[in-house]
């Protein structure tokens, strides 16, 4: 059961049952996951849980004192709300510890139908001000807010002083910011929505093409969104991480974001000081190897801090996108 009393609760991703068990065994306090459909924002092929698998996963986690958070964090399109309603009822039946939601109607349904279940507000809701967060707390009984990755630590501290909800922040993984829950770049190029279909850069529309000189082009929906030289590190095939040419920069430049991962390992004590309850690791689409390494590293770091020791942090750069890492907006408002 989540009480919110633990400072530095480690919230870890799982894309498969084996990943969830790996996360629990590596020291996760809570694990978030989703069903194999559009109700969550990682609706990727071969990923996620059947109801039977989730039942087994909840048992495995609970027997070892860990929590399972069910991501229902996409937005139901008109006429399709039943899918989200059924997922919420199923999650309740399977005894998940909390629902992670973005859409107000989903939050309303859970708060009325399953009032005993915790609701965590997804980063996809993009609630970044005390007024917005307090609205969700007042109207839907939200217990925790996952803050967008656009706030400095002093800003997080100020928000905490004006809200009653717990705060969860991302500490490692994908650094795709834009306006979370509002990004329509994939939709623009493919006709499919990150926010309603749960698919950012759907794999069936991604293509990698190598030329005779070993350069690799990344295409999405027929559009070339990046080209990597033979020795150059690659990134995710998302429009926000693409390079584009214009008259001034004919060789291409990162118009939105660079391929880079968030890593706040050095800022954990400051985040705790600012009132952050839970630390979130991104990466439900990543492997068990990633889950094992990242969760173990942060488990050790959080335990060191709690014990008053200087945290010893493993080098995680090999697991980062583009083999580069940043402290993003948490460190400075201008992070590019």
């Amino acid at each position, binding site marked *: 059961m989540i009480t919110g009393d633990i400072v530095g609760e480690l919230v870890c991703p799982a894309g498969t049952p*084996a990943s969830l*068990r790996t996360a629990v065994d590596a020291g996760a306090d809570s694990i978030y996951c989703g069903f194999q459909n559009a109700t969550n924002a990682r609706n990727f092929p*071969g990923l996620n849980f059947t109801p039977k698998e989730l039942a087994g996963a909840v048992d495995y986690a609970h027997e070892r004192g860990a929590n399972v958070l069910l991501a229902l964090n996409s937005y139901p399109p008109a006429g399709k709300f039943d899918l989200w309603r059924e997922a919420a009822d199923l999650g309740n039946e399977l005894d998940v510890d909390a629902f992670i939601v973005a859409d107000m109607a989903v939050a309303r349904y859970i708060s009325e139908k399953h009032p005993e279940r915790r609701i965590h507000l997804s980063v996809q809701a993009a609630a970044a001000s005390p007024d917005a967060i307090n609205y969700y707390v007042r109207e839907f009984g939200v217990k925790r807010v996952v803050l967008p990755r656009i706030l400095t630590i002093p800003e997080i501290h100020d928000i905490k002083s004006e809200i009653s909800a717990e705060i969860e922040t991302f500490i490692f993984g994908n650094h795709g910011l834009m306006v979370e829950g509002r990004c329509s770049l994939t939709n623009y190029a493919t006709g499919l929505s990150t926010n309603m279909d749960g698919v950012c850069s759907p794999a*069936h529309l991604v293509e990698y093409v190598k030329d005779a000189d070993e350069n690799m082009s990344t295409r999405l929906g027929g559009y070339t969104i990046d080209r990597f030289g033979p020795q150059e*590190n690659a990134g995710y095939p998302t429009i926000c991480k693409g390079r584009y040419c214009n008259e001034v920069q004919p060789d291409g430049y990162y118009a939105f974001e660079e*391929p880079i991962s968030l890593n706040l390992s050095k800022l954990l004590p400051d985040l705790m000081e600012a009132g952050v309850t839970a630390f979130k690791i991104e990466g439900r689409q990543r492997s068990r*190897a*990633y889950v094992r390494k990242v969760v173990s590293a942060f488990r050790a770091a959080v335990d060191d801090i709690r014990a008053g020791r200087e945290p010893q942090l493993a080098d995680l750069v090999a697991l980062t996108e583009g083999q580069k890492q940043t402290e993003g907006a948490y460190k400075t408002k201008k992070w590019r």
Partner: protein
Amino acid sequence: MTNALPDPIARRLPPLAELPVPLLPLQPILYRIVRRVAEKHPELFERLGKHQRTNFVIELTDLPLALHLRPFPPSLILRAVRKDRLPRHEAHIAGDFRTLLGLLDAEVDGDAIFFSRDLVISGDTEAVVTLRNALDDVEGSIAEDVAEMFGAPGRIALDRLNAMAERAETQENSHDNW
């Protein structure tokens, strides 16, 4: 690097990936392997969904062969093919033996080796992503399971394959250093 060949010998040998290798003796062994994996891990094939019917070519960049995989349980295909005579396929995966073995056993992260360009994919990206995710949900070592089914010779073969891959890596480094 261990097992490094003396420089003059390394210079005389062609890269391992270019050596001719008889494929016929490998075929029944590979078929037994994929049958065994299908019997032991049916959930892997359920997770593949529609991509059970996809033809994958897995190119071992440091060995003189590629593999053709069609993971459709009623008529499984896993066979060795020549790199210059690849069969019709929808998805193509390329990497060195050790990288692919690590991926098979979830010892390495697929995204990380894609970012570093140690894994190269082309064709049907969705099929490759689905296969990667399905394999990642299999706990335990598939490679060791397979080696075990052939008893002591299987374990020796796995060790030798690892040694061959290491030798190939050494040779490649040796050629690179000229």
